[in-house]
Every structure is written in structure tokens, then in C-alpha cells.
């Protein structure tokens, strides 16, 4: 199709008022509308697959008139990486919307909730399918505002406090991204990531260094890498479950994607050959290890059902950072991107399952739970699937991607001795992740039943979990499709 990508952005934009109006009348209609939009968008994106797999430069580009004065055109593009992450994003939005039907049904202001969710989906998808930095920044911040209101309006305990923390942290990160983008514009006179890459090669390396640091620091905040992770545990645990699934599944992945695409893909090649280049990558490794250990260790001792998962997200972003630091090794990058995809579905599923448990029990402390496997079989299955995937157990999704990252790591050790110790440490961290995953499942679902008269969740929540469960298993057994797409992208 000629305008497939433009439509993927405009369809939700046009749908916002309809979603809002239908939300005033019925509580289910808006969710179905969002689901419909997601399905149409997935179909639209799929039309680009042939040109990604068989095209000359393995990507599909559309460009429209926008702000010529700032050398910005409304450029949309997909390649293997963008396509994989954008598709998974749409699937997560779809399941989040379906899950909300039952999960949110007693809440007030559902029309606003679904309208915000639709608005959010524009930014979430847009950030992955544009190659213009200005448009990228638009979508980047468009993720922020609806998320703020969703967490604040429908979250738990002191939701606006968590939302405030989220907004200020990520906005502070974003302004550094903005500085970087401004500097790229100034140096290259262009805001297209592919053209800027070539132009930066001849720029002053000292300046490029600062651009790289500024951008990466900004993206790392969204990614919640230690030490800028402080917003994540609060935001993820206070948000309503569907929003937590999106936050953990997609929004932090956007940070990782941005580091890969902009920091490493566009700016890094200009300093790759210098000492600073390897220092930068080693820095990523160190922060990756810190995040992995910090997240896993706290997840091991945390008792709040959602905070465990939140800290596990920090740990997994640690793996991703480690994977990114192996740039530009093909296996490592493929593994990292695949891990973003797999982590998104697994973590989304885990958050939805946790939401299901919280909804039925109305408590959050896992020590007060137990034996739910008999009472909530579907939720128990989905939680176990997700937790095992998070722990990296075959045949579930995350195993393949973690495996690929480690293959990449071993290859890198041949070139750079530095990675010897980090790789060993990361292997230890995977053991930790198995520990907290088992603790999570054991406390909640095994042992003796502590609550009576608990039933499993209503239909749409089950449906949402089953859809994601299917993806976790399928991606674990047959990752070839995405691997094929992702390996079609070459960075250097």
C-alpha cells in the first residue's frame, strides 16, 4: 500500500473522538474500537514485509511535506527492527484494551481512559516507525502525557505522585535528548537519522562525543537503567495493570530501541574507531551489569506483587544494555532486539496476570497469597508461563533471545578481553532471575490456599492473557520470522 505507515498514525488520531464518544455510551465499545484499530494497523504494517525482506536496502520509506525550514519531513520508515517492535507494541495495546474491559469496569471516566489509551498508541507506534528525529521526539513525548494522566487518574495508592515522578524523570531525560537532536541538526543540517549518520562522520569528534553522551543519557532514563531507574518501581506498580503492561513492555523498550537506533546507529559510527568508542561501549556494559544485579536482587526481597515485576524490568533492561554494548555484532544485536520483543510480551503477560490476581484478591503482598493454582487456573498458567520466560527457561520466548545475546558476547570476547568478566557476571544474573521468578510463582500460586471463594477472572481478562501466552510460547518455539526480519538490518 502507498500510504500504509501514514495511515497507521492517522487512524488512531482520527479515532480518538470516536473512542471518547463511544466510551460515554458503553463501557466495552471503546475497547473493541481500539482492538480493531490495532488489528488494522498490524495489517497495514504487514503490507511492508515484502519490501523489508526483499527490497534493495531492506526497508520501506514514506516521506511527506512537514517543516522544510527545519529540514524535517514527515518521514516514516520500517525495517526489520522497527517492524518487529511496532507489531509487538500493537499486540500489547490490543491485549491491554481487551484486558481493560473487565479490569476497569467499575472505574469512573472510562471514556477518558480509552481516549488517552488511543492517544498513547500514536506515540508508542510512531516512535518506532519514523526516521526523522523531530518526529521521533514528538512521538517520544507523546508517550509521556497520556501515560501521566492514565497512571494519575486510574492508578493505586498515591497515583499522581508516581505519575509526577515518572513525568519529571523522563521529561528531564527527554530535554537532554532534545539538546542532542538540536546539536545534530546544527552539525549536519539534517534531522534524518540515516543522512545524519553520514554527515556526522566528518564532524568534529569532540562534539560528536558530547552529542552521543547527551542522547544516551536521555534515552537511558526512559529505559530505567541504574542509576536513573528511580521512577520505574513507583510508576509501574501504581499504574493500572494494562498500563503497567504497556509501560514495562513497550515504553522502556522504546528507550532501548532509541539507544540502538539513534545513539549507536546514527551517532556512534563517527567515534567507533576512537578510544572513546570502546570506552562508551564498556560504560554501557557496566551500567547493564549494575542494572541486572540491582533489579534482580531487589526483586528477590520485594514482597509487593507488582514491585517484584517492576524491579525485574530493571534487571531485564540490564541484559538489553549488555546486549547493546556488544554493538555491532550481528548475533548480539539480533538477540537484543529479539529480547525487546520477547520481554515485551512476557512482561506484559506477567503484569496482566498480576493485575488479575490483585483484582480478585484486592491485596498486593505476596506473603498473604498462596495456593491460587486451584482457584485461578488460567491466571496461574499464564503467570507461570510468563515467569519462566522471564527467567529464560526454554521453550519460552526469552530463552532464545538471552541465548543469542550470550552467543554474541562469546564472539565479542575474541576481540575484546574486557567482556570476559561481564559475560560471566551476566550468566550469574540469569540464575538470580530464575530465583525471583520461582519465588513469585511459588508464593502466589503454590502452597496452601489462604483465601476462600476466589474465582478466576472474567472472560476478557482471560482472553487477553491467553493471546499473550500464545505469543510467549510461539516466539519461544519458532522465533525464525522475527530473527529473519531483524537480521535483515545491518548497522555498519
Amino acid at each position: 500500500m502507498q500510504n500504509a505507515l501514514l495511515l497507521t498514525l492517522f487512524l488512531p488520531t482520527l479515532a480518538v473522538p470516536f473512542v471518547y464518544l463511544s466510551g460515554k455510551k458503553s463501557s466495552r465499545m471503546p475497547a473493541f474500537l481500539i482492538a480493531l484499530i490495532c488489528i488494522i494497523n498490524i495489517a497495514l504494517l504487514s503490507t511492508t514485509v515484502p519490501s523489508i525482506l526483499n527490497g534493495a536496502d531492506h526497508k520501506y520509506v514514506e516521506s511527506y511535506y512537514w517543516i522544510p525550514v527545519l529540514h524535517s519531513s514527515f518521514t516514516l520508515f520500517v525495517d526489520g527492527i522497527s517492524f518487529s517492535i511496532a507489531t509487538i507494541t500493537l499486540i500489547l495495546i490490543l491485549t491491554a484494551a481487551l484486558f481493560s474491559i473487565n479490569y476497569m469496569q467499575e472505574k469512573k471516566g472510562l471514556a477518558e481512559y480509552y481516549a488517552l489509551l488511543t492517544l498513547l498508541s500514536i506515540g508508542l507506534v510512531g516512535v518506532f516507525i519514523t526516521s526523522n528525529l523531530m518526529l521521533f521526539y514528538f512521538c517520544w513525548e507523546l508517550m509521556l502525557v497520556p501515560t501521566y494522566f492514565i497512571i494519575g487518574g486510574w492508578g493505586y495508592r498515591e497515583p499522581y505522585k508516581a505519575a509526577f515522578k515518572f513525568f519529571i524523570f523522563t521529561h528531564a531525560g527527554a530535554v537532554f535528548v532534545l539538546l542532542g537532536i538540536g546539536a545534530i541538526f546544527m552539525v549536519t543540517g539534517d534531522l534524518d537519522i540515516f543522512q545524519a549518520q553520514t554527515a556526522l562522520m566528518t564532524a568534529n569528534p569532540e562534539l560528536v562525543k558530547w552529542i552521543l553522551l547527551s542522547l544516551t543519557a536521555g534515552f537511558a532514563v526512559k529505559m530505567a537503567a541504574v542509576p536513573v531507574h528511580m521512577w520505574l518501581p513507583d510508576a509501574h506498580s501504581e499504574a493500572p495493570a494494562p498500563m503497567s503492561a504497556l509501560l514495562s513492555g513497550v515504553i522502556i523498550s522504546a528507550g532501548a530501541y532509541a539507544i540502538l537506533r539513534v545513539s549507536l546507529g546514527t551517532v556512534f559510527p563517527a567515534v567507533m574507531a576512537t578510544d572513546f568508542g570502546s570506552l562508551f561501549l564498556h560504560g554501557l556494559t557496566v551500567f547493564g551489569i549494575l542494572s541486572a544485579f540491582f533489579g534482580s536482587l531487589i526483586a528477590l526481597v520485594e514482597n509487593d506483587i507488582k514491585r517484584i515485576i517492576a524491579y525485574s524490568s530493571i534487571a531485564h533492561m540490564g541484559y538489553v544494555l549488555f546486549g547493546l554494548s556488544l554493538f555491532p555484532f550481528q548475533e548480539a544485536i539480533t538477540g537484543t532486539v529479539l529480547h525487546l520483543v520477547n520481554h515485551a510480551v512476557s512482561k506484559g503477560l506477567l503484569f496482566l496476570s498480576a493485575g488479575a490476581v490483585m483484582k480478585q484478591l484486592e491485596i498486593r503482598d505476596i506473603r498473604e497469597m498462596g495456593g491460587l493454582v486451584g482457584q485461578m487456573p488460567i491466571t496461574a498458567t499464564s503467570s507461570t508461563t510468563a515467569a519462566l520466560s522471564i527467567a529464560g527457561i526454554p521453550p519460552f520466548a526469552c530463552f532464545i533471545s538471552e541465548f543469542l545475546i550470550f552467543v554474541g558476547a562469546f564472539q565479542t570476547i575474541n576481540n575484546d578481553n574486557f567482556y570476559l568478566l561481564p559475560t560471566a557476571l551476566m550468566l550469574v544474573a540469569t540464575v538470580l532471575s530464575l530465583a525471583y521468578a520461582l519465588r513469585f510463582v511459588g508464593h502466589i500460586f503454590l502452597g496452601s490456599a489462604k483465601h476462600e471463594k476466589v474465582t478466576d477472572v472474567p472472560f476478557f481478562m482471560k482472553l487477553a492473557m491467553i493471546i499473550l501466552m500464545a505469543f510467549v510460547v510461539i516466539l519461544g518455539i519458532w522465533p525464525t520470522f522475527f530473527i529473519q526480519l531483524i537480521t535483515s538490518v545491518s548497522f555498519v
Partner: protein
Amino acid sequence: MIEILDTALPTIVFILFSLLTIPVVKTIRKRKSGKTAFKVGWFSVAFIIATISVVNLASKYYAQPSPQPFLNITLTAEPLAMFSSTFLVDAVSIYMAIIFTIVGAVVFMYSLFYVDSDEKLSERYYSIMLIIIGCVIGTAFAGDLLTLFIFWEATAAGSSFLMLYRKTPKSLHATLKYLVMIIIASAFIVYGLSIVYALTGTLNFWAVKNALMALGDKHLLEIAFIFIAAGYSIEAAVVPFHMWLPDAYTAAPASSSAFLSALVDQGSYYVLLRVLIYILTPPTVMPWTFMFAVLSALTMVVGNLLALTERNVKRLIAYVCIADVGYNLVAITSVTPLGIMGNLYFFLAGGITTALSFMTVGIFNSMGFKTLDDFSGIGRKMPLTSLALTLAAFSFAGVPAFAGFIAKYLVFTSAIEANLSWLAIIGVLTSVVQAAYLLRLINYMYAKKPQEEAKIKEPKKLLAIILILVAAIIVLGVYPTILLNLIDPVIQQLPFVP
């Protein structure tokens, strides 16, 4: 060919209508019905005629084969032309006239509904607003330093009447403060101008510039510069000369605060731009960039920190205005085409955003909600007005898809371009602070529990005007090309070589 009448016509139209307003509006005082319709009609005629005159001027200017940067129109013929009062038409002044007319019309209509027409002095209020619009457009077309001074002081004097309108002790106090500051400022400016005149023998913009460029000993010019810069900085509320602004804007009725922030404030930035960039062009005439870089950093930091500690919402917005002065100065300081573009974009974007927030806050204030605590839970009671204020806050904070973002992007990028990265970093950090206190305001509006649950009826007519501005900040944020194309001719005529 552009005649003197074409140039002066917008100003004349406004002044004429201003004079006619009092008798005309007085005649309908006694009428029972149709008062509002009559007034809307009367003022619409004023704005339509003014718009036609501005469009006429713009089309004549751009109809020239190659539009001259300094189209010099004098009252007297050669050889006395140098000493005569001069009008100037160039891309900047035309752009300013256009935005003054458009924004003036919107804000004016708001005041029309906001100020109760049965109030005793209402027609005087309208009349003063019209004359201020006229004067501020006159400022844009001034071609020598004296004409600029006269029109600008007239604007400032008119503003003081708007602040005084309610005649409460507080507003008297604030107006007094403002007048004292303005008088000091004008004394400074006159002193500076007299030195410039002594040095160059003229006050005509380009004659002054050329004479100053050829000047050997610049010591006297430095003294003159300090006085002129200080004077205009006081009027633009640059920190440390900002003290009058929060009081003045808080004491004035909401419609005047919106008006002052959208027109007079932007007018003062224009004056700074004209004097600093077009006459004292650095580095050839006067290397002032570092001094103003420091002032702008100070203004951003102080303005935002004061806003952070403020609990009165109207005053908070006034502090945001001060912070905006800082962001404008960053762009002026950079002396790059991108910076000037950012500046001109900021004139409109910042102007309508502050106007929008003063308008919404005005509605809240008139219902008795003044401090942050009063704003608790107001988002549920008055959803539309709150939404408008929220969007304005996001625009201030520089969140994309709103006009403020494009303005800030241009400003910070220009600072990087001018090797003032430290200023850009201070700028983005302060704008995070800005996001913080504006979010706190939003938090109060949506997160806190209201003191009483009852829904409040929102004023429909005022909301209609507010929605126009909301639409404007979204359109300018999503598709800034509309405005950037209008600014483009200015960039072709810059007085410095980029």
C-alpha cells in the same frame, strides 16, 4: 509604492476607533437589549479595517520586485530627512503587525465578554486597549529611535491604565511600582539616546548603525549602551529588573493580564530585538552577547525558581512570563538566523500561551479560586477550562505537539549553534523545573479532592475564545510551517552575516 499613509494606517485606524469608542459605546448604555451584539459588531469593524490595512501594507511591500530590507519613509523630504520622524517597513515589522492584530483581536474579544459592560468605566477600558494596540503596531513600524521611544512609552503609559482599572489599593500599589520603574527606564533610555545622538548626529536606525560602525572610540557608546540596555531591560522585565511584573499582572483584571502578556510583553521583546540585533548588531557595532547571555541565564533561573515557590496561581503564571523573557533573550543572544526565527516564533507562541493561561486563570479567579489549594479538584468541576489551562501548561513546559515546544527547540538549538552550549543546558534544566511546577498545578487540579463536589457552570462565551487559542497552540505545534513560512522573509533580510 508604499506611501506614508499605508504604513501609518493600522495605527491610525486603532487610534481613531479608540477615540470614537467612548461616545459610540456610551450611546447604547441606556438600551435594554442587543448591547453585546452591537459592541461585538463595532469592534469587529475596527479589527477588520485594521486587518485590511495591514494586509494592504504587506501585499504592497512584497509586491516589490525585491523587497528592500530597510524601506525608509520620512515625513519631510531631503535634505532634512535625516532628522525627521521616520517610519520603517521591513519583514520584521510586517510580521509583528500581523501577529499584533490577530492576537489583539482574540484577546480583545475575550475582554469584551470578561469585563461586564455595565461597569462604569468599561468603554474607557476598551478604548485604552485599542489605543495600546495602535501604539504597539506603531512601535513595530518606527524607523528612528525617537519614534520608537515615543510609541513604546505610549504603550507603557496605556498599560498602566489597564492595571489601574479596578482601582483597588493593591492595583494602585502595583501601578505605582510599574510607573516608577517605567519612568526610571525612560530616563535611562533618553539619556542613552542623547549620547547616541551626540555621537552620530542622527537617530534614524540605519544612519545610526552606519555611523556607529565607523566610530573609532567606543567608550562613550559603551556608556550609552548600558543606559539603553538597562532601560529596555526594565521594560521587558529582565531579571534583576523584573520586580514590577508579578505585581502588575496580578493586580490587573485577567483580561488585561492576558492582553499585557500577549501584546505589550511581546512588544517589549520586539523592541529589544530591534535595538540589539538591528542597530547595535554584534560584533561589529557593539559586542554585548556575553552580558545578555548572563542576564538571560539569570532570568530563566530566577523566574522559574520564583514560580516554583509561588502558591497564587495568577502570580505563578506571571513568573512564567519572566522565565519566558529569559528564553527569548537566549535566542536574541545567539545572533543566528535560527535564533531570530525562534524569537519571532516565540512572540506568537509564548504570547498566546500566556494569554491563554491568564484567560483561564481569570475564569477561575472570578469564581473565587485563587491559590493552589483552591485549585484542588477543580479539573472535575470545570473540565473544559481546566483542560485549556493544562494544555497551556504543557505548551509552557515545552512538550511537543504544542506551540511552546517548537519555540523552545529553535531557541536552544540556536544557543548551541552560537557556541553557547552552557546557556542551552541551563535553558533545558530550567525548563524541567518549569515542567515540575506546572505539573504540580495540574496535580492540584486533577489529583486532589475538591472541597465541595458541586459542578460549576462554565462561561460559554469566554470558553469559545479560549478554544480558539487552544486550537492555535495545537496547530502551531503540529504544523509550525504555517508560521515559519511567514517568518522566512525576515531571515532573508538579517542585518548580520550568518
